[in-house]
């Protein structure tokens, strides 16, 4: 069984105090508790500080392009649907550049786990507003304040009947670890939006700001009730609910692809069919 240290990756380039450290720790702990070994799963990521995540975890890694982690993860799952595939993305990465892929990953219900580091700011490009930034956010390129409304990822995913929608907080590692485990154990596409303070550029949504507002969904909360889930998903501001907001048991995409029913595609790689067999239909 792998130990926490076995997942130790490269030295991080994140700022001291960054919310990403909490996510990293929770993730490694979750892997230990799920009894996964480093070679047994793959992390796919995009660009941004979240994109660097897989370098800090010892595991298989495909760190691709801005916004494109989900299609890569989808192709990888279809090639080998017995291997857990985790996508790590940022709010700009996934809700901005990669919005179309997110919509369709949810529609497909591909069994990929998406963890979004949602810090409501573009950190790597030094402080522009992101899709989840609050209206009125002032930055160098929005000196009069952001005009657009904030994108609500959990309401959006619930509206699309995403099969697992959760919100975690980088400041509560234990709770986040449990959410990660629940997402991994869920059969179907899972979105975990993780509130993550950016200590350098986001001076509004700080640890204290989140601490004042975040609360845990009560034990009797029914995550299968989509209407109620939508109500909670819309709650953002004075109070912010954490936990599994919505769950639906839909069949995963991989389970409905006949070509991989018996075994993963990658195990079917052998001598391809002979030409003659394929030519018969052309005579």
């Amino acid at each position, binding site marked *: 069984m792998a130990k926490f240290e076995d997942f130790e990756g*490269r030295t991080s380039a994140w700022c001291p105090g960054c919310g990403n450290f909490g996510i990293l720790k929770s993730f490694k702990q979750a892997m230990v508790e799920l009894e996964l*070994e*480093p*070679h*047994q799963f*793959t992390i*796919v990521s995009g*660009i941004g500080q979240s994109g*660097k995540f*897989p*370098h800090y975890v*010892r*595991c*298989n*890694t*495909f*760190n*691709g*392009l801005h916004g*494109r982690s*989900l*299609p*890569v*993860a*989808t*192709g*990888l*799952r*279809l*090639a*080998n649907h*017995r*291997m857990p595939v985790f996508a790590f993305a940022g709010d700009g990465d996934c809700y901005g550049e990669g919005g*179309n*892929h997110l*919509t*369709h990953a949810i529609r497909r219900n591909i069994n990929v786990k998406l963890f979004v580091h949602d810090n409501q700011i573009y950190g790597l490009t030094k402080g522009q507003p992101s899709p989840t930034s609050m209206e009125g956010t002032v930055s160098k390129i929005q000196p009069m304040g952001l005009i657009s409304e904030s994108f609500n990822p959990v309401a959006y995913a619930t509206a699309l009947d995403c099969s697992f929608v959760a919100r975690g907080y980088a400041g509560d590692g234990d709770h986040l670890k449990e959410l990660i485990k629940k997402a991994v154990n869920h059969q179907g596409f899972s979105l975990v939006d993780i509130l993550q303070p950016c200590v350098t550029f986001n001076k509004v949504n700080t640890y204290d700001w989140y601490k004042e507002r975040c609360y845990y969904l009560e034990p009797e909360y029914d995550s299968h009730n989509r209407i109620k889930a939508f109500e909670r998903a819309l709650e953002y501001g004075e109070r912010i609910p954490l936990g599994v907001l919505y769950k639906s048991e839909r069949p995963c995409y991989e389970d409905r*692809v*006949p*070509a*991989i029913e018996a075994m993963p*595609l*990658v195990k*079917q*790689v052998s*001598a*391809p*069919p*002979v*030409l*003659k067999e*394929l*030519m018969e239909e*052309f*005579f």
Partner: protein
Amino acid sequence: MNTLISPHKGVFLDYSIKLGGEGGQGIDTMGSVLAQLFSRAGYHVFTHQEYESRVRGGHNFFQMRLSDAPVCASRAPIDILVAMDRASIPVHAAELAPGGMAIYDGRATKESHEGAQFLSIPFVDLALEHGKNRIMANIVATGAVLGMLGIDLQLLFAIIRQTLAKKGEATVTANMDSARAGHEYAVRECLKCAFIAAPGGPGKILISGNDAIGVGAVVSGCKFYTAYPMTPATGILNYMAGKELSHSIVVEQAEDEIGAINMALGASFGGVRAMTGSSGGGFALMVEGLSLAAMTETPVVIALAQRPAPATGLPTRTEQADLLFALHAGHGEFPRVIFAPGSPEQCLYLTNKAFDMAEKYQIPAFILTDQYLADSAWTYDSFDQDRIVFNDYRVRGEAFQGLGEYKRHAYTESGVTPQGTPGDGTHLVVTDSDEHDEEGHLVEDALTRVRMVEKRLFRKLPLLAEEISPPLMYGEGEAETVIVGWGSTYGVMKEAVDILAGSHKIALLHFSEIYPFPSVKKLDYLTLLEKATRAVCVENNATGQFASLMRRETGFLFRDRINRYDGRPFTVESLLAELKNVMDAGKGTKRGEN
């Protein structure tokens, strides 16, 4: 009566049939049935089609040639014109060969065409009478064409049974009765139709460019095909989807072309052969993914079926204008291979070679076609299994586990690092779109950057170049005129050379493996060109992209160029006319209309 004798020596049968109609009238189905029937009867067939960018209406045509010798292009004179709509006669009647015949349904269109070349056949009335459905007009017309050619109905009946059996006996009978009615009508009324239908040989394969790419992919072990539908590449997607169950292939319609290429890269990283396809605008979206394939050294095959652009251009027409785009697409510097097949046969073998090279060198490989080739069908006696290459270059299972250490991007003499399969064994497979070290982790230091560029680019390039086959030379060895082309113009250029060979010392150089540019080591084409009085570069584009590439790669400058850029393919006649201009004037033309 028809005395059209092919210029091919000793060939007596060479008919061109054109089927014209509106979109939605089933011209394509009718043409495909006839072409399949002729190829089963053992004739050589060539088909091409032109259609408008709309679902119904407009005017489309499907043209085919049948001959007792190999044919690889359309000829302009039409022997049989089948007019299923009003537009067909005014648009195409002038193309009728001496002795050619146009059939149309004057009763349905309430039009009448006078003259020995026109015969009205009541397609619709016969369909209603014998098939109880006006939709059978097509099959009446198909029967009539066979009647005109003196070919009996047995092969058509077999196709009807084969394709319509699942719709029930009544449908099969209705179709057969309708075909018989058309056949009998033509035999009875078309007294001038004494076309000679010489017996054919053994049944042949009839295959289009798109289908041949699909076959090439499946036979290469492609396991994952993903695309967003875009004309004229969609046919490949259709073919691959048809093989999902029978050959365990995952075919995914992506949300967009960006998703398509990234999915293909994910699957390839996961350990299976993967491919995507599109046309220019869709490929434009794939370009960042192309660079990602290069940086992560992930094999991928990309079919780029060209159509006229920029932007949406002429969505259903043809052009060879994305060569330099395919060559230069992507940010940064990295190796790739580009193949531009000239026939369905080359589509098949070069797709196979593209998979092999993509995997062997862990690079992107292109198959560059266009609408004309994608939708054209050619006949062949057989294909050769021995020419199919399949080597699984990946490190899998126990072999992977057995490696002492593993670094995905380790420096090697060849620049190629064994590609491990994630999940097989305890080694980790790590790659990155950022510059990375040997293990695949991102770095920024200058020395690693230099070594990685050398690994990816400089070490692989000479090895890639060694694998490239020389251009195909066809015709006179001591040619005074050498015509040079690439991709889909092969057939029409070959036919032009055949026609001119009697009166001119002429040769064709056809390039189907375009990048890395073929060296002169295997075939000294530069000497051939330099010795010739006239070297003419023929391209289906406005600016002469291949001529530019040739200049860049070899220093050779074409003084004469023939460029067609009206969205239509060259026909043998249009090319001959242009060549005559060049030879007469001794200098090039660059006209679009001809």
